[in-house]
């Protein structure tokens, strides 16, 4: 059980748990959290896929970085929509 397989297991479990939660949750915050955890799980798998002989390939790192920034943008949009739905201010 090298350390990489442990991280792969962690990544896989993160993704699966997040998918399960996504399918069963109706609450807005829970779905947003599940999406974020799913994205982190995928990022973990992406990095580990690019890891050969102890060196992590630079291109998946760029992919994960882009993924993180995209995710924060979409989460901000999701949160502002969710607030508007439950806030109900009369704009």
């Amino acid at each position, binding site marked *: 059980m090298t350390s990489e397989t442990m991280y792969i297991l962690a990544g896989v479990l993160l993704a699966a748990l997040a998918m399960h939660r996504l399918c069963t949750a109706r609450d807005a915050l829970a779905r947003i959290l599940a999406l974020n955890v799913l994205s982190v799980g995928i990022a973990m798998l992406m990095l580990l896929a690019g890891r050969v002989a102890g060196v992590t390939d630079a291109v998946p790192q760029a*992919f994960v970085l882009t993924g993180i920034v995209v995710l924060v943008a979409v989460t901000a949009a999701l949160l502002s929509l969710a607030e508007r739905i439950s806030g109900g201010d009369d704009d």
Partner: protein
Amino acid sequence: MTEAYVLALLPFLAAVGAAATPRMAAIWGLCATLINLGASILLAARILSGGDMRADLGDWPAPLGISLVADGLAAVMLSMTAIVATAVALQAMSWGLVQPRGGQQRSRLQAGFWPLWLATLGALNALFLSGDLFNIYVTFEILGLSAVGLTALTGSRNSLRAAFDYLAAGLAGSLVFLLGVALAYAAVGRVDLAAVPALVDTATGRLALGLIFAGLAVKAALFPLHFWMPAAHSSAAPAASAVLSALVVKGALYLALRITIEAGAGIEVLRIALAVLGAAGMLWGSWMALRAERLKLLVAYSTVAQIGLITLAIGVADDPSTSAMWQAAALLMLSHALAKAAMFLAVGRIAEELGHDRISGLNRTDLRPGVAEFAFAIAAVSLIGLPPTAGFIGKWLLIDGLIDRGAWVWIALLLGGTALSAAYLSRVVSRCLRGGPHVAPGARRPEWRTGDVAALGLATTALALGLGSALPLTLLNGTAL
């Protein structure tokens, strides 16, 4: 290759301009749309004469850098987007060119619409041109986010709820797509589209393609995963729902078609799954459309049905290197985009004239059916796929290929779908014509507006496209197989 650069970059720069100067957003939007139309026509002409073009961005060769691929299929999709873009821009013009200062609700709708719409246009152009899977993932994100913006524009409670569900489902779909790309990277070590044929050999590669298709199914609102779509498309503003239904959904369908072309005959299981889901979607969408009470909901469910039809076409097409059946799917996409955009614009105009869009109340006798109802009827003809339209030519090519293979089940499903779509669309058109012999003396026909011109123009292009479908088909023949 400069047209491809213009197509990819111009909408984004115009979007920034429109966001920076909200009161002049319409001028930004109009100029960008017209230049975009010109560039796409030039690109199509260049491909017709010179064949495919490929440009490596930053002069870095394919696997490392990203390459913009402009071939027949991309050119057809780009010109489709450009035509619908011009019509939608025309419709949006009815909100006035320059916004008065302080105009409250209308200016927010106006200020918000143009940047989001230009971002959608830019994302679509980038998607059709891109030759790299991760790059396509980022374009899908832009597409999803700006489409949600367009849905939430009206600000009503149910449009916001629909927008939230749309964004959550869209993000989930994109993440599944990203997981597929990650697995593809794990399988073959590179993520550009040229690597797709290599994916088919290994088990991981096939799982990667499966995940990619699952992600696309969510983005394209294919049957079992379409729950978010009807609410979003029916509660958005008319111009916005035209864009959503006609173009945004096409991005995912285009990519599914592109991958089935690249992967060739290797992914039989995926193809059959696509075809089955498509057929189920077609029947279910038509069934829901038959029972829909509101016009916008009916048109949204008809989108579900038409997407099912297109996916069926993609699924049953033979191996692209041998037969040209995949072109039927492309033609169906083209005709659906034009017809559905025309239909949503017409529905917007009808709702504006009558004040509501309940199907039962469509025939108020003091208002005779005007141009919008006529545009709706023509768009319905090309959606059903009756002869003079491109939809009919698409179905013709499809059935022709299926008969060679003797696949009678699919043909029966196709004809059943056509009959069902005829049923639910004639329900609306006959309701418009129902007026009673003693039409009120003061009955008048609504006068012409820019919205009508856009809807009628699109509908007649969809109709005439059938006769002129030699052009897109020669373009499609030039696609890099």
